[in-house]
């Protein structure tokens, strides 16, 4: 809808002050868009294709050709500029889609699942490029199911469940809000632990669950965030001859935030 491709059934949306329905051409001039699976005219060469898209923005020929060269270089596709797009791999097509979304120097860049199905090095390339664009002042609007990517890239997130926005804020703010109302997790690292010690911790009022990681010397304890019981847990473990290496509060990541808002299924 924000890209003006789909019309809203109701409501309004504005990008840079322009209504996406009433002023769709103004919006289109100022945005860049890359769909999750960009489709191209396979018979066209990479440079031809970018020149074709650039033509819509009436970019003068000299500037356009330079822009196309620069974008192909930036996307590491310069040596394939004269190859037909139908011969490109998935990652190369994704890069070409990214280049096409930048052809008009957009103020707002809308990316739909930009890293889905890509190999780790291409994913890294995309993340680096998105960050760099954002640092240059481009507003990046990213939709993704890969929450680690979102966490790494976004200043602000919106969580949608069943078509409705249920939260919009920075990850830190959401984490704080959720931590104050829900349970907290702490991770205890030790040299050795006995079942007796674990059972003693379980009996503490406010301890909700304990998960023992068999492959490492760690336990994850879920506690009621309203009860200050971390010192008590520490004392109980020490009294049960556990040599504690560290006790850390597990920071909420985006996945934890998402699951606490949407609920595990």
């Amino acid at each position, binding site marked *: 809808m924000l*890209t*003006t*491709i789909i019309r809203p059934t109701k409501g309004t949306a504005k990008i840079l002050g322009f209504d996406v329905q009433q002023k769709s*051409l103004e919006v289109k001039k100022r945005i860049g*868009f890359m*769909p999750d*699976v*960009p489709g*191209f005219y396979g018979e066209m060469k990479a440079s031809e294709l970018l020149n074709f*898209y650039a033509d819509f923005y009436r970019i003068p020929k000299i500037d356009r050709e330079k822009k196309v060269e620069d974008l192909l270089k930036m996307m590491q596709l310069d040596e394939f500029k004269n190859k037909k797009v139908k011969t490109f791999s998935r990652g190369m097509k994704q890069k070409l889609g990214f280049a096409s979304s930048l052809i008009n120097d957009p103020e707002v860049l809308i990316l739909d699942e930009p890293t889905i199905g890509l190999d780790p090095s291409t994913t890294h390339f995309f993340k680096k490029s998105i960050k760099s664009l954002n640092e240059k002042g481009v507003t990046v609007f990213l939709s993704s199911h890969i929450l680690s990517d979102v966490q790494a890239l976004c200043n602000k997130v919106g969580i949608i469940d069943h078509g409705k926005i249920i939260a919009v804020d920075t990850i830190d703010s959401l984490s704080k809000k959720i931590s104050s109302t829900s349970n907290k997790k702490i991770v205890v690292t030790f040299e050795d632990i006995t079942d007796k010690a674990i059972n003693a911790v379980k009996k503490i009022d406010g301890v909700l669950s304990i998960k023992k990681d068999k492959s490492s010397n760690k336990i994850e304890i879920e506690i009621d965030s309203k009860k200050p019981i971390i010192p008590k847990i520490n004392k109980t473990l020490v009294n049960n001859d556990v040599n504690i290496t560290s006790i850390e509060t597990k920071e909420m990541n985006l996945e934890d935030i998402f699951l606490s808002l949407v609920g595990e299924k």
Partner: protein
Amino acid sequence: MWTIFVLFKKEFFSHLKSVRMIILMVIFSLLVLLTVYGTFMLMGMSEAFVPPDVSEIMIEQGPIFILSSIVGMIFFIGPITALALSFDTIVREKIENSLHLLLCRPISRRSIAIGKFLGILGALALPIIVVNSIAIVVIIFLSDKGISFTQIGGFLLFTLIFLAIYSAIGQLISSSVKTTTTSLLLGIVIWIFLPVIVSILSVFLSDFSGHIELLNPSAPYNVCVGHALGTLTNEASLSIPLWGYYLSFILWLFIPLIISIEIFNRKED
């Protein structure tokens, strides 16, 4: 206008370079060549092979008779050529997902539909004008009778409108369906059955046969091009006034075109 031109340019060159277009134009050129050659052969044959009245018309009309023979061939090959280029113009973009990258450019949906239509028409017009012009030059060179620019212009103009009608029909189908196969099948059905259905209707509704024949774009094309070439000698013999054929010809172009533009404009892709 600029964005329509950008899309027109892309469509025009893509079609001109396509294998499909090359095959169609080779077939079209061969058929034009055969028609010209065949008609010249007939004109030179003795009365034993050609009835005297036909031979008389051939000799009297000269190059015009040959052009009329080309028109007869275009009845058959013209619609399938235009449909073959236009049947997947929109639906393929939807399937291959290239439409999204086009729709996010500063171009309206209506402009996309118009640009695509003009691109197909331009790609059809160029080789058809070239092939027919060569044929006309050959005809004039080999015949002792002349042919006016009005006649040539009329023949080319009405032929292009005839092809534009089927391009618009092809685009209408392409905007309405979800797969290229459905679009192709519908195109073939229209090409084969439109004249058949109209003929059957004319038999059952013989009182209105003059009006019913207008349901097939070939009828107004035949009359309009005949009028331009001067072979339509007796206007009174027409079932409806001449302007009715012209009007029908224009409506055949604009109605499918406008519907196809509006369908594409209203659809969510």
